[in-house]
């Protein structure tokens, strides 16, 4: 048997190699680690924690003080009754007694807002019911069922009891149901929301539809420009490239406000059209604060993200292929369609996916120029964050949007490769 190969100091070669390799791996990992930890802590974790809000909403059973962060348990008597009685039990006197005791406790702890807001998400208008109920609970006499219903008959609504039972669990999928325009009927089954409250699915479809349209328009505009840049001599194409890169480097708010100036009713474009006599004073085009404005401004902002990947692919296509096709008798259209276009597909895929991903999550431009009709899902999320304060619904909508974006991101990685991403 051959002697085992060893290094000069007698260690088996295989072990020495393994040790050297693992040292190299550790060194490489050590370089990446600070950033990886930073990103995980201040980016991945916060987003994960926010997503958790979409299924975890304890506001009905725990009130959090906004100033100190102290948590007070509330509605515990009612929670006990729900735990003891299965779904479908008619609320009896014990249930109402528990409810009244909890309402009185809400008044003591000033927590009627927390519990009421949570139920208000499911049944609009119940926040005031909880507030007035908490105020009057101390004065009620047994039997509580009659006295509470006499105070406000809405307390007998089976839908309210259904909502309260769901809310005591703390963990719920209801916000996802709401985000998909579904709601729970009194018996717990899932049904479509009322016609006039079905807004989210439509908005998701609008967002994806508009993003697809913008991606398509970007492709139409980017293709000729990228082709021109790729076929011109270097000196000239570098000069023209500046015209593409300057918008890319210019502030987003500058470009958005520039489009407002150009497109608004008393703006430069309308004035020029009136001045040229193409339209009259009262025919001024409404191109701002609607879908048109959003599409134009977003196309302009995202166009460089389409031109750059297309250009870098087109640069590598040899002109001799098209010339060969032509010399073999193809018309210029056939040569383009059968020989040139297929070679640009990687660029179309890379640019298209990137533009679509960026468009789906767009916020600033639709918020400023979109008006009421040009809004996208991001703007709805911001509304729920800032105005209605329904953070759990905002989180559920975000989770759906994020899932869509991450699937596209994964697709981009598979088809193009993240390391192929280039800027300028």
């Amino acid at each position, binding site marked *: 048997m051959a002697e085992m190969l060893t290094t000069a100091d007698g260690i088996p070669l295989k072990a020495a190699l393994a040790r050297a390799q693992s040292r190299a791996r550790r060194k490489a990992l050590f370089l990446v680690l600070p950033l990886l930890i*930073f990103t995980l802590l201040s980016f991945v974790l916060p987003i994960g924690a926010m997503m958790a809000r979409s299924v975890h909403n304890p506001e009905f059973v725990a009130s959090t003080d906004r100033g100190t962060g102290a948590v007070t348990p509330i509605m515990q008597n009612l929670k006990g009754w729900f735990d003891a009685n299965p779904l479908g039990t008619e609320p009896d006197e014990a249930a109402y007694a528990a409810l009244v005791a909890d309402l009185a406790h809400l008044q003591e702890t000033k927590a009627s807002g927390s519990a009421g807001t949570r139920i208000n998400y499911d049944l609009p208008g119940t926040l005031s019911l909880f507030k007035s109920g908490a105020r009057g609970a101390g004065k009620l006499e047994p039997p509580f069922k009659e006295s509470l219903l006499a105070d406000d008959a809405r307390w007998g609504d089976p839908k309210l009891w259904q909502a309260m039972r769901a809310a005591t669990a703390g963990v719920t999928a209801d916000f996802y149901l709401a985000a998909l325009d579904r709601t729970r009927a009194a018996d717990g089954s899932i049904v479509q929301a009322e016609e006039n409250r079905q807004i989210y699915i439509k908005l998701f479809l609008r967002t994806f539809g508009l993003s697809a349209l913008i991606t398509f328009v970007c492709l139409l505009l980017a293709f000729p420009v990228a082709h021109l840049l790729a076929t011109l001599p270097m000196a000239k194409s570098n000069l023209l490239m500046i015209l593409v890169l300057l918008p890319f480097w210019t*502030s987003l708010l500058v470009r958005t406000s520039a489009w*407002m100036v150009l497109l608004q009713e008393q703006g*430069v474009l309308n004035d020029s059209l009136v001045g040229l006599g193409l339209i009259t004073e009262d025919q001024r085009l409404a191109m701002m604060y609607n879908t048109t404005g959003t599409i134009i401004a977003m196309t302009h902002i995202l166009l460089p993200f389409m031109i750059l990947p297309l250009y870098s692919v087109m640069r590598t296509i040899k002109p001799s292929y098209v010339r060969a096709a032509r010399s073999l008798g193809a018309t210029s259209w056939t040569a383009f369609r059968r020989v040139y276009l297929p070679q640009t597909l990687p660029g179309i895929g890379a640019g298209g996916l990137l533009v679509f991903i960026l468009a789906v999550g767009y916020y600033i431009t639709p918020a400023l120029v979109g008006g009421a009709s040009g809004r996208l899902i991001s703007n709805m999320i911001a509304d729920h964050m800032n105005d209605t304060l329904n953070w759990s619904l905002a989180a559920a909508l975000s989770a759906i949007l994020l899932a869509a974006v991450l699937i596209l991101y994964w697709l981009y990685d598979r088809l193009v490769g993240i390391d192929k991403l280039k800027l*300028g």
Partner: protein
Amino acid sequence: MAIPTYASPLERTWAWTYRVLCVLIFVFLMAPILIVIPLSFNAEPYFTFTDKMLALDPDGYSTRWYDLLLTFGMKAPDAVRDGGWWADMWANSTWLKAAKNSVIIGFWSTILATALGTLAALGLSRPEMPGRKVIMAILISPMIVPIIITATGMFFFYSNPCGILQWVGISAQCGRLTSTYTGVILAHTILGIPFVIITVTATLSGFDQSLIRAAASLGANPRTTFFKVILPLILPGVISGALFAFVTSFDEVVTVLFIAGPEQQTIPRQMWNGIREQISPAILSVATILVIISVLLLASVELLRRRSERLRGVAPA
């Protein structure tokens, strides 16, 4: 793109149509950026060219909106412009305050993003790196994740950074990062990192790894190797990554909307206010200044790119 002499009339027509089309697309790209420059000198509070402006009458033009940028927010804007006036402006002008904030936040987030990003890029470009693809995907994701999701996630996290501990059963309360410079700087660092990673790994892909071994064989320790061999060669990529990170921070408004307090208002935040409330030509004078800044930044990035190509031995453009 010369039209060959044998081209048919149809092909000739198409070639010209194609050229006109390209010119129109370039106009579409540049027009909005160029239009704000003359309009920012409008003497009237309109967003369109007045008759006087079209007639090139000097009365139609003024620098009043630039003046407004300086004086807005001052205690005594109409006082005589002596030393006291300038001190008042330096201390109180709203836009100047915003500019200072933008520079402070941009500077520190760029430093952080560049330092962390360059280190990580060095690790990622080593062939031994375990889990390279996954880590790269995580580090690039801040560029891909919709900004509103990033901003809301950070808002909750920064309002009580220790709140995260409740997931492991500890109920803790510690200082908040919302309405602080640190919070905004950290948020902008995260957003700038993908750009640094992308540009530096691109530069490193053309980097000859045997130079490191050569340096080591000549007796250099890893530190010396980094500062004397690696850094000078990848510096153009690092600087252009830093510029990208700076521009990202300098142009960022959504996380500022959610995280920053009244003390951390930046230029984009002020513009956002201006556009939403009453848009005045003052916005256009800010826009003009920002366009000039972006021209300067683009020029530096282009110069760096050419230098980098020269250093890496790629034929200069």
